[in-house]
């Protein structure tokens, strides 16, 4: 099966395939060990895939059981690496992390690179509102280089709005190059509600699987233990 196919590959192709799997193969390693490493990696990936698919959307519909060896031919479609615009985009991933990607117009970037007064480029993460109170705006900066173009950002608070600014500092002065739209981090704590205030509500929350969701870490709740004690297992 997979082993047989691997054995038909040349040494160079084996090493190339190992590299696509992220394996670091020491130079001169015997061919048999390279094949074993690849097989181990494929098996590990299969286990991880099973875990992911089962936890998530139960999707086995794309699965190639005992995965076929992917083609070693490089993909011929090359996308633009740049759209030659200065912009920054912020995407919410989960309650704790956001993803940002950005681009700086070629002329601006080149100007910064040759400007002796250019000091730094950084991202300013701006927290604009916290929950329903009116806490003052807070922000923090993340230094980035001129070659960076994406970043995952840990967002400190839930139920807050954030946006991000791409800023260059030249001769001590900050210049906002681009500003993203805003995202709001979701709550992870169940809101206090009438539901949790009465036993009937707790029974319904328990029957809805609140305890299991808390155990799985998807939600947090101060009423967890109470709803657990009120609900009989299904």
């Amino acid at each position, binding site marked *: 099966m997979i082993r047989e196919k691997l054995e038909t590959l040349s040494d160079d192709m084996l090493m190339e395939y190992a590299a696509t799997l992220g394996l670091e193969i020491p130079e001169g390693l015997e061919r048999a060990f390279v094949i074993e490493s690849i097989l181990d990696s494929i098996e590990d990936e299969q286990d991880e895939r099973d875990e992911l698919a089962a936890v998530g959307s139960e999707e086995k519909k794309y699965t190639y059981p005992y995965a076929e060896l992917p083609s070693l031919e490089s993909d011929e479609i090359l996308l633009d690496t740049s759209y030659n615009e200065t912009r920054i985009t912020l995407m919410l991933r989960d309650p704790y992390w956001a993803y940002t990607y950005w681009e700086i117009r070629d002329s601006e970037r080149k100007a910064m690179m040759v400007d002796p007064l250019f000091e730094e480029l950084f991202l300013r993460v701006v927290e604009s509102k916290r929950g329903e109170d009116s806490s003052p705006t807070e922000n923090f900066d993340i230094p980035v280089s001129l070659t960076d173009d994406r970043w995952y950002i840990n967002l400190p608070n839930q139920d807050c709005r954030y946006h991000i600014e791409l800023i260059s500092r030249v001769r001590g002065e900050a210049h906002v190059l681009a500003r993203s739209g805003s995202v709001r981090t979701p709550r992870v704590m169940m809101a206090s509600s009438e539901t949790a205030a009465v036993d009937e509500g707790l029974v319904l929350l328990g029957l809805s*699987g609140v305890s299991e969701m808390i155990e799985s870490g998807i939600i947090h709740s101060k009423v967890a233990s109470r709803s657990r004690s009120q609900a009989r297992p299904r």
Partner: protein
Amino acid sequence: MKAGYVSLVLNAHLPFIRHLEHDRFPEERWLFEAITETYLPLLRTFERLDSDDVPFRITVSLSPTLCAMLEDEVLQARYKAHLERLVELSDREVARTANMGEFHPLALMYQELFRQDLSDFVEVYDLNLVRAFDYFGKRGRLELVTTAATHAFLPNYIQFPQDISSQIETAMAAYRRSFGLNPQGFWLPELGYSPGLEDYLKAYGLKYFFLSSHGALLGKPSPKYGSFAPFSCPNGVRAFIRDYRSSEAVSGKGTGYSSDPVYRDFYRDIGFDLALEDLTPIIEGPRTSTGFKYYSAGGESGEKKPYDPAAADLRVKEHALSFVQEVAAAAQEASGSMDEPPVIVAAFEAELFGHWWFEGPKWIEAVFRGIKERGSIESISPSTYLDDYEVAQVVEPEFSSWGVNGFGETWLDSSNDWVYRHAHAACERMIELADRFPDALGLRERALNQAARETLLSQASDWPYIMKTGNSPQFGEHQVKESISNFTRIYDSLSRNALSTEWLTKLEKKNNLFPFMNYRVFCTKR
């Protein structure tokens, strides 16, 4: 009086894959496997329940891309040819296993199954399964809803209002083309909800959507009936909440019914066990699964025994009975704390039933027969529930999905984040094109319509999903790159006024979904 209701919801979706340049294209098998193992068995299940007058109401979301493929004559012909090869292989398997006591009955089972598939597909359904689902919809057995045009994970495009509108409006048009009316409900792809999506649904006249349990429970306020009743969003669109426990009971890893060791194993397949010359009718090139699986899943020891259909049938009945009992008990208990009867929404990927869990369609059949026998609960469609009962509570739902850890990381991580730089750029450029050429005609209009198709195709949630999970990641990357590349070529050509008619015509023939496509759905001023 009934203790409550159960509402079974199935999301049937596959990404659009149609490669005319190859006689047989490997990833087209996703469609073929789903038809053979899920859609045909489900239709036969509906037929049996219907003819036995078992009351059943199931909500099915048939994605626009799936409908486009099921209605496509080229893919229909290719699937028919695929079935003929399966029948040929089954004849050979019957002969090969003639002296293999444990496997011969299974070979005979597959021979009968594939012959029936061929007969049903050609003679009963006339190659078009969308019409078959529509038939059960018209009979009131199925409530057919729709989903985003190319099953985009909408939270990742929420910053592009025109794009969200385009996904929904195109889906609505596709639904009308397939079923002749507007849908009432909407399946958010991957149950991906972001605050504000309900405003788009309302704008298109959609009455309800489905939401993950935590998306509801983390809402403001938390729904007073937990997941046992729909609630109203502030704009009046209703949300039905997926029941966490019933989904775990069926598909929980290692604990769900579908994981029972008696059931047929998904992985072990003669496509990997037999000599290639024994597989020639069905396999050309790399080994892959054939659908001939002779082993049961087996327990933790890893030992796999020959599949025993009779034992599996028995277990199906036990699991169906267990499900009905548990749902009825939960409904009974919940009803004491509610003003209206509870409704338990059991929502799944359709392809779980049959493709991943071979016995799944039989389980569905046994569940509805069990519900009829037990009599304390009924199946109901969401729209009927909304017609019959008040939805009093107003809740603002929370960002959520049914992906890993409940939010967006399945569709946004280091394996797939590169997609959005390009997919978002295509969105922006498509909006720019639509605004620049609001009244295009002729070749330019054709080009803009194809650009809109390519923009939407690049957004399918399937591609980042398979990049993340490692199933054919290169294929997912290829599909995104191809769509973006096609879009960019049109964008650049329109800017230079130098479009190749021959190239465009070829592309229109290949990616021929949504023939009604109107690029103006991307206009900002409509």
